[in-house]
């Protein structure tokens, strides 16, 4: 335990995010990394993986080999920091769609993720034992579901905690408020991670809410809230780890806002240059979540050029392997329209399937 209680305290004020790691890679005085050296190196590798996948995904999408997808770029520390606060064997991740590294850490095969963004229904099939719900496209709809999931585990005496992710845009949805309110009422073991990346596609944070901070709404739900530097992997990890510990101890939910910045497009169909001011991007560049962790690891001699090269080669090979695997798969057919709609197909659906299959055969 870090000793940090994730709630607003007068000493750091509502609008001052909790920080552990300074942009230059040095620790804030009096604060320490709650991750072991090994965990820290793994977390760094996962952030690099995520950034590399974003780049590969954009490139493949431009070649017409990959579907529309939403990169994590700029937010890696928020996702990875939170993910490393969870125990994948018993805790759950309920994602929106910008949380690839958290899903990977929970054990989701990369191929599965790629299939989803290729528009292949088989992408939804997370293997049994991988504690994740499917990617969510309807903003904030996953939040009440996460509360129900956490509540359901608690009712059955399991000590599972659910981390649910959404963005600043989703925090304006009715489901967000209903979920926070419900979680507070039930004291459900859930951690809301709101990644405030400054933009809901092109709508800036300032047009999202007049509230000074999104986490500052927490007292209205009767739950603790915490504002954390979302580009600081160690700070996010610490705050979420404390929230997880609280949840596990039966003390209920926490609302965590990670203050971060989406570096570029919302997804591969977007053009952020139409709305993101260049000076804003420049201002955030020195706070890049990856360079920050790398600087810290190098200072502590936990990362050197040889290790860096080895890690990047490993990542590239893994991504290439996944690309080969999904591109070698037989494309889904008519039967995939009907599989898993219901447990058994009604006569009407059986008829529709037969009709479509016959049409495909005569094409």
């Amino acid at each position: 335990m870090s000793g940090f209680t994730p709630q607003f305290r007068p000493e750091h004020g509502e609008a001052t995010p909790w920080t552990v790691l300074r942009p230059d890679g040095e620790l804030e005085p009096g604060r320490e990394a709650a991750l072991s050296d090994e965990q820290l190196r793994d977390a760094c590798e996962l952030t690099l993986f995520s950034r590399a996948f974003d780049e590969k995904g954009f490139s493949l999408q431009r070649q017409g080999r990959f579907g529309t997808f939403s990169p994590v770029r700029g937010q890696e520390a928020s996702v990875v920091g939170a993910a490393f606060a969870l125990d994948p064997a018993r805790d759950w991740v309920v994602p929106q769609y910008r949380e690839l590294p958290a899903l990977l850490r929970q054990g989701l095969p990369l191929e599965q993720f790629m299939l989803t963004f290729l528009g292949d229904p088989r992408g939804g099939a997370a293997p049994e034992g991988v504690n994740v719900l499917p990617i969510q496209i309807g903003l904030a709809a996953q939040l009440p579901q996460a509360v129900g999931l956490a509540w359901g585990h608690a009712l059955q005496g399991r000590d599972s905690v659910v981390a649910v992710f959404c963005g600043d845009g989703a925090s304006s949805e009715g489901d967000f408020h209903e979920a926070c309110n419900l979680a507070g009422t039930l004291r459900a073991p859930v951690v809301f991670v709101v990644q405030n990346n400054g933009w809901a596609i092109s709508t800036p944070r300032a047009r999202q809410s007049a509230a000074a901070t999104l986490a500052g709404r927490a007292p209205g739900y009767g739950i603790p809230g915490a504002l954390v530097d979302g580009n600081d992997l160690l700070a996010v990890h610490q705050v979420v780890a404390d929230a997880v510990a609280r949840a596990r101890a039966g003390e209920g939910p926490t609302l965590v806002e990670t203050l971060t910045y989406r570096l570029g497009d919302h997804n591969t169909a977007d053009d952020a240059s139409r709305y993101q001011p260049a000076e804003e991007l420049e201002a955030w560049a020195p706070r890049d979540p990856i360079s920050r962790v790398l600087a810290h690891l190098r200072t502590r001699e936990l990362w050197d050029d040889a290790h860096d090269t080895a890690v990047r080669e490993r990542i590239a090979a893994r991504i290439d392997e996944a690309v080969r695997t999904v591109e070698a798969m037989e494309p889904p057919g008519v039967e995939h329209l009907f599989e898993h709609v219901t447990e058994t197909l009604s006569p009407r659906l059986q008829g529709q399937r037969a009709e479509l299959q016959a049409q495909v055969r005569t094409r």
Partner: protein
Amino acid sequence: MTRLNMLQAINTTLRGELARDERTLVLGQDVGRLGGVFRATDGLLDEFGPDRVVDMPLAEASIVGAAIGLAAAGLVPIAEMQFLGFSHQAFHQIGAQLARMRYRSQGRFPMPVVIRAPFGGGVRTPELHSEALEAQFVQSPGLSVVMPATPADAKGLLQTAVRSSDPVLFCEPLRGYRLVTGEVADGDAPVPFGKLRVARDGTDVTLVAWSAAVQVAEKAAEALAEEGISAAVVDLRTLVPLDEAGLADAVAATGRCVVVHEAPLSAGFGAEVVATVNDAAFYSLEAPVARVAAPDTPYPPGRIEDHFVPGVDRVVAAARATVKAA
């Protein structure tokens, strides 16, 4: 067999299912201490405790959303919408989330969720309490839409709903809650989905209805009998899955058909019945299929709702015209 009204049938069924399977739980607004605004969940809180009969914050989307999560955690939630008319506030959680979670997760997360929702007119409720919205949910693939008309079916279909691994919207005709009584089997008597019920035999015309409209059709059939017209009454019971074969047989047997429902006419489920009859029994028809439905107007205040909800007279007139058509 025991004689029960609809509410008693639903209440005893919920009690039986909660006792049968400890994974089940009931959640909604006022379902606990009050026992539901209609008392459908009366006594369940005392018997099963607050972890299994749960008064929820007044927020429909989170009631359904939480039910989805509970199901993903391995439980069997039975959620109540206080009135189907309020389900618009949860429509995205029902149609876009619950109904397609099995498909979205490729079978990893089946959704054994039941949403109970009273609906229907004729009892002078305030605005937004009476709307028949069933057709809206029929367009949410993955969701069964169940519309019992009798106490026996309320029990049998609810047992099937709770035991189904797929989500079910279970619409209860509130007008019949205390008025409609009937013999109900004791113990287990699940009624399968997708099998219509022939409520009354007849040879001249087939009246097709569901939920509270079945009683209207039955009364119309009695009135028609006095005129010498023999009307069959068919209760669809479940709109999804639809008993297409049973519907085709029932219509072919008389060659004439009138569909009766409480929802507005345009794109109501009656249109689906007509299209299905066209597909499956067109050449047996001796007259166009008629529809008796509410007008395409907002559900009105109580003092004029009897002009809105189809009554016996309109069904009789439609059946008479259909039988007389060349």
